[in-house]
């Protein structure tokens, strides 16, 4: 499997604060990788490290096969970067900006540029400083997609945008997906669930997991077991059970290591259960349970369980 982004023990500290803590990450070529996490989790810092905007304290990253510390100049011919915080040449018009950037990219596709301008309904003659936030984002998208980059990196691209603009941008992005790798950060789970192929979760600078979306969705289940009689919680519950709690005869938890054998194993563990319900979870539900578990120091339980753990 070709990797577009690979990091090894990437760490970034600001004074005593560890913003990115020994992150090892692999983003396969052609994937749409969503990096999620709460505000302040370290998503933007990680992206800035990948883009050589910041330098890591330890560890290293490779982007399109290039050491991220050497990512300058022509290396950006193949990378499109859009960030919610990124400044644009505000004195230029939208058309002026596209004209200006066009000369930098040998692979600039003028037809695609025109298509994006139409698709995003960009006002070419208006100055960037006079555009709304949504329009600026669309202009930034157009200027970063028109040269058909091999990698598109988006830092909170949909943050604070109205649903219409958000959908337009996602549509534009999905159209480019077959020919590129997309790496985006977001804390809006609903919007990325629909189109991401991979997901990574950052919590306080640490990567809790990083896997394919389908795998993640398959291994998380919202489990409700109705018992015949009220029973107390056992002390040695499986590590993959998050937030276990009982109310009268009902035991409820999130199983982060669910697989095909899980219903049978549950039936064996609770022979007197009147009902065992294992419901699929939305990404939002998964992350809420992870976040709650992390608060309760159950961070280690959210990783994919190893075979040894399963056996235990």
């Amino acid at each position, binding site marked *: 499997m070709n990797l577009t982004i690979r990091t090894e023990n990437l760490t970034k500290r600001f004074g005593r604060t560890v913003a990115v803590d020994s992150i090892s990450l692999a983003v396969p070529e052609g994937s749409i990788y969503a990096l999620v996490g709460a505000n302040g989790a370290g998503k933007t810092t990680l992206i800035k490290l990948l*883009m050589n905007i910041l330098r890591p304290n330890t560890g290293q990253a490779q982007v399109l096969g290039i050491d991220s510390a050497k990512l300058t*100049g*022509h290396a*950006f011919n193949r990378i499109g970067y859009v960030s919610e*915080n990124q400044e644009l*040449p505000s*004195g*230029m018009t939208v058309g002026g900006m596209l004209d*200006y950037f066009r000369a*930098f990219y040998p692979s600039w596709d003028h037809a695609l540029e025109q298509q994006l301008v139409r698709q995003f309904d960009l006002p070419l003659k208006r100055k960037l400083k006079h555009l709304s936030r949504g329009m600026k984002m669309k202009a930034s998208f157009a200027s970063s997609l028109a040269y058909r980059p091999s990698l598109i990196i988006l830092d909170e691209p949909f943050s604070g945008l109205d649903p219409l603009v958000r959908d337009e941008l996602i549509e534009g992005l999905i159209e480019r997906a077959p020919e590129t790798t997309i790496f985006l950060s977001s804390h809006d789970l609903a919007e990325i669930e629909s189109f991401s192929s991979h997901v990574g979760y950052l919590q306080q600078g640490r990567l809790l997991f990083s896997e394919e979306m389908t795998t993640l969705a398959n291994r998380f289940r919202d489990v409700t077991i109705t018992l015949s009689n009220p029973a107390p919680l056992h002390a040695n519950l499986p590590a993959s059970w998050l937030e276990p709690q009982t109310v009268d005869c009902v035991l409820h938890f999130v199983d982060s290591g669910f697989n095909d054998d899980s219903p049978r194993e549950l039936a064996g563990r609770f022979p007197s259960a009147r009902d065992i319900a294992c419901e699929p979870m939305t990404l939002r539900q998964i992350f809420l349970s992870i976040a709650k578990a992390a608060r309760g120091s159950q961070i280690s339980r959210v990783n994919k369980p190893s075979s040894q753990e399963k056996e235990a």
Partner: protein
Amino acid sequence: MKQILHIFLKDARHFWGEIFLSLAITAAFVCVTPHRWPANFVAHGYLDLAGILVVLVPVSWWILTARVILAERLVGDTQFWITRPYVWSNLFMAKLLFLAAFIYLPFCIAQCVLLSEAGFAPQSYLPGLLYDQMMVAGIIVLPLAAIDAITSSFARMTLILLGIYLGFLAFAALSMLSASAHVDPIDNHLTFRLCFPLAVLVFSAAIVLQYALRRVWLARGVLISLPFLLWAAALFAAHYDQAQFNRIYPAVKAGAPIQITVLPNLRSTESTSFQGSPSEVTIPLSFSMDETGVAEGYAVLTDAVRADVTAPDGSKWSSDWQAAGGYKFLPGEVPFSPGFAMPIAVYNKFKSMPLTVQLTLAITQAQAVRVNTVALATRTFSAPEFGNCAPETGWGPEFGGRVLELSHITGISCVAALSEPQLTFVSTHWTNGPCPASAGAPDPGVLGTAWVGSIDREPAQFGISPVVDAAVNLSNRYPSNQTGLRYLCPGTPIVFTQYKPAHRMQITTNIEGYHLPQVSIEGNRITISQ
């Protein structure tokens, strides 16, 4: 190259307003400045305007430099260009090209136009023009660019400039407070020769570091180190200059170009104020002397003086080389009063003893290399190898209670190209009465002389205008009885004798049984009686 031009053209389009403003100010400067020159002097209003424009030209450069560098600012992590295929060397060259096109080129053209306006052929002064451009770059543009490179916005850059300005003021105030009252330092050429390239190097390093690496604190560290480096270089230069005196001015073995006779000091009382602590004050000591023996075709200049004082008990004190008053001797006997400054602590040690003072003068024997005689014209006239001059026609319609006709010439004013002229002795004759109808001064007239220029001139002196005033303050301008006026009549010969250094040497004079003057200090005033 394509990327360089692309960025350059973007900046040129984007900052056309700033460019226009800067060019307009430069053009106004070129139009107004000639009115300051004596030949064109019209009214004081032009003087004021030219003075304002001299300030506005660098201010426009400041704005232009800041705008173009901050367009792709180097500080921060949200700039659009840092994730685009910008090659740092191309960006750097594009900014350099912009500064060359819209600061240096207009400035160079302005200087050439001004030189032409003043009657000088610019092509004859190319080394000087380049030297001046280099100094303007090193003293104005490069520091501005370096500060732009380490700041994130125009406002911050302005604040830093303000801070530096206030820092300079504080430093100057502290220097004045701690400075010894009467020590005139010798001209320290090495300080500039060492500090200027050092500053250029540090500013350039900070800029290139920022463009290449965008390591803001590294670049800031380099710039912050500059004052300390300059201080160290200045200390080294001052020490080196003192140490080099014996090499530059070897002790004369035989045939000193002048003879010095020590005269008894006249009784006098002088009172001056001083700044700083009374315990750090220095006492100015001077000696009456006569100088003779300057050969025909030569002049002798006193460049520096040092003293070695020996007391009867064998204790000694030696001064550093100090400025010697800048005396210039021509053939004939001339009284003069060289002196040196002695720290109050040394004075207190020696004040009650008869002393032996060995006074050593560092002198330059200058040879007259060119004599040009020019007849005074009623309009601008050229003094070859000196500059262009014009007759002064007074300070107003009325002077000394008498109406002064504009045709009455009361002196000459000259301008030189890029730097003051080579040291020149100017001599002519005044007339006490009205000028005769025919050309020439009434015989014999009164001699008027002036020294103008420098014996060791640089190719150019730092300035926005390439035309430099060369003031010719002729002696005997006013009659001793202060009645009436003296004039220069059209056609009067004016002799310009140019000198160049021939030899430098030290000559020594011993003064035996010297008693230090009485000194009293009250408040910040020092009174010296001898």
